[in-house]
């Protein structure tokens, strides 16, 4: 079962919930935590474990080989991303614009654009007691998070079966978020009861509906703001499965890099609620 932890707004507590929920679930269930927020992967700051596998992650872009090129220009005309340009006596490739569709490479009549691999990041797999933890980590300066997210997902699907997978997703509603949630069985949207939280919750709810995803809400820092998030969820018939209270002690523990699921009863009680919901939903998925 794949559970994506997402939010429109950044900093609402995705990583806080993902790490604590995964560690809590792993006491009784076979659990994996997967950090797909590859631009800023933070779950690993809370989950220290033994590294059992690491690999470089690549994506493919064409590289011009002038030997047999007849300068027909097919490569330029078939690239929809303007990543291949025919200039006077050369073919220029802009890898940062390339989406790795292979069209130019495979349609070239002289095989003059072989695909070359470029490193975009790394994948790490750790074991923390009973918990499997997998993270993707984008190299600085790389623009495209999606290929790394997709390969981290593939690795997890191949290596870890019959587990409850908790997927820590990137913020926002753009393509990295869609790539992260698209195969999930359930999406937990973490929000905070503030005007910014509400505004961005509405955006991600719209995105989840468009993707046809089953989703529920967890309110973090409950009590800090106003009732508008709860009013919105009620009017939209969106189930709120837990409310984690606003408490400075949580923020302090988080700042040190500590998990809190076994420290504060009021956090554990909310995690129990989420676990009960997940296990019940697991039967119907």
């Amino acid at each position: 079962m794949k559970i994506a932890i997402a939010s429109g707004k950044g900093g609402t507590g995705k990583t806080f919930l993902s790490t604590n929920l995964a560690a809590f679930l792993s006491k009784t269930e076979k659990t994996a935590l997967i950090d797909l927020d590859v631009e800023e992967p933070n779950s690993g700051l809370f989950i220290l474990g033994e590294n059992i596998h690491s690999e470089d992650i690549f994506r493919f872009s064409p590289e011009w080989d002038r030997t047999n090129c007849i300068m027909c220009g097919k490569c330029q005309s078939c690239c929809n991303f303007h990543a291949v340009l025919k200039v006077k006596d050369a073919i220029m490739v802009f890898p940062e614009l390339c989406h790795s569709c292979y069209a130019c490479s495979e349609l070239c009549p002289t095989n003059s654009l072989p695909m070359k691999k470029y490193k975009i990041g790394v994948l790490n797999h750790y074991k923390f007691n009973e918990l499997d933890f997998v993270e993707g980590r984008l190299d600085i300066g790389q623009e495209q998070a999606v290929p790394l997210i997709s390969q981290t997902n593939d690795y997890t699907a191949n290596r870890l079966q019959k587990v409850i997978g908790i997927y820590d997703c990137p913020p926002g509603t753009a393509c990295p978020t869609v790539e992260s949630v698209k195969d999930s069985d359930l999406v937990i949207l973490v929000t905070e009861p503030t005007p910014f939280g509400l505004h961005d919750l509405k955006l991600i709810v719209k995105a989840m509906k468009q993707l046809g995803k089953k989703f529920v809400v967890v309110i973090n820092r409950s009590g800090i703001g106003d009732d508008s998030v709860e009013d919105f969820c009620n009017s939209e018939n969106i189930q709120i499965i837990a409310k984690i209270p606003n408490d400075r002690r949580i923020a302090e523990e988080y700042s040190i890099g500590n998990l809190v699921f076994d420290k504060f009863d009021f956090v554990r009680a909310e995690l129990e609620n989420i676990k009960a919901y997940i296990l019940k939903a697991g039967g119907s998925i």
Partner: protein
Amino acid sequence: MKEIVVISGKGGTGKTSVTASFAYLSSANTVLADCDVDASDMHLLLKPELISSEDFFSSDLAVIDYDKCAGCGRCFEVCRFKAVSFELDKFKISDNNCEGCGYCANVCPSSAITLVKQNDGNLYISDTRLGKKLFHAELGPGAENSGKLVAKVKNNAKKYARENNLNIVLVDGSPGVGCPVISSLSGANFVVLVTEPTTSGIHDLSRVIQLVKKFHIKMGCVINKTDINYKASDGIKKMLVAENIPLLAELPYSDNFTHAMIKEVTVAEYDKGIRSMLQDAWDKINNLI
């Protein structure tokens, strides 16, 4: 004209609250651009009145015309994005997976596939209660090309600034280090980093500093929630010294950020203490650019 971009790496450090406060403290010669296009919140504090709205068409989606389709499956063979599947009696293209590369349309022997431009969002120009123009956008749910939309918002704001002899463009960036952030950094004169003294905040700050260094842009840093962990705050300050990045302000952990938001004002208007710290920071920035 100088372009100041506010980013944070980590989300939720108070980037938008700080940017909106700078917008309040800045001179009348300022244009505002919200480039956090998939979670744009700054307008919530500035009572915008919409002046104009423009559709943003950018990505393509492959669509099959079944009157022409011979069912050969060539599209299925060439697609690298698992967007084509065979369901019941025909090949289908998934909107969610299609990358818009057009490879399938290019090789279809029956010319049954066309690319259709998608509305990926909207671009807005608004008047704000601060008397400054705000250029903002809303990315369609799950849409591609956030980097291009960021570039468009910024270029529109810069064009307006040039035409009206305004000398500051203040940009609210997005979290992360990927394509929308890189897009918001191109052409910037100064980057304000908003961070918090948490393990996540520091980790993400160091990644975002590495990124900005690649662009050779001057930086300054605002530490928010500094009293949540003094030891970590000291760690950030040491990092800033080592990187030769000036500290612009140290703000307290305060519920007033949220209270201001609920009142739809900037935290600089709501809390006098924070206001003077941010005024100080804004003055420092203006001396540095």
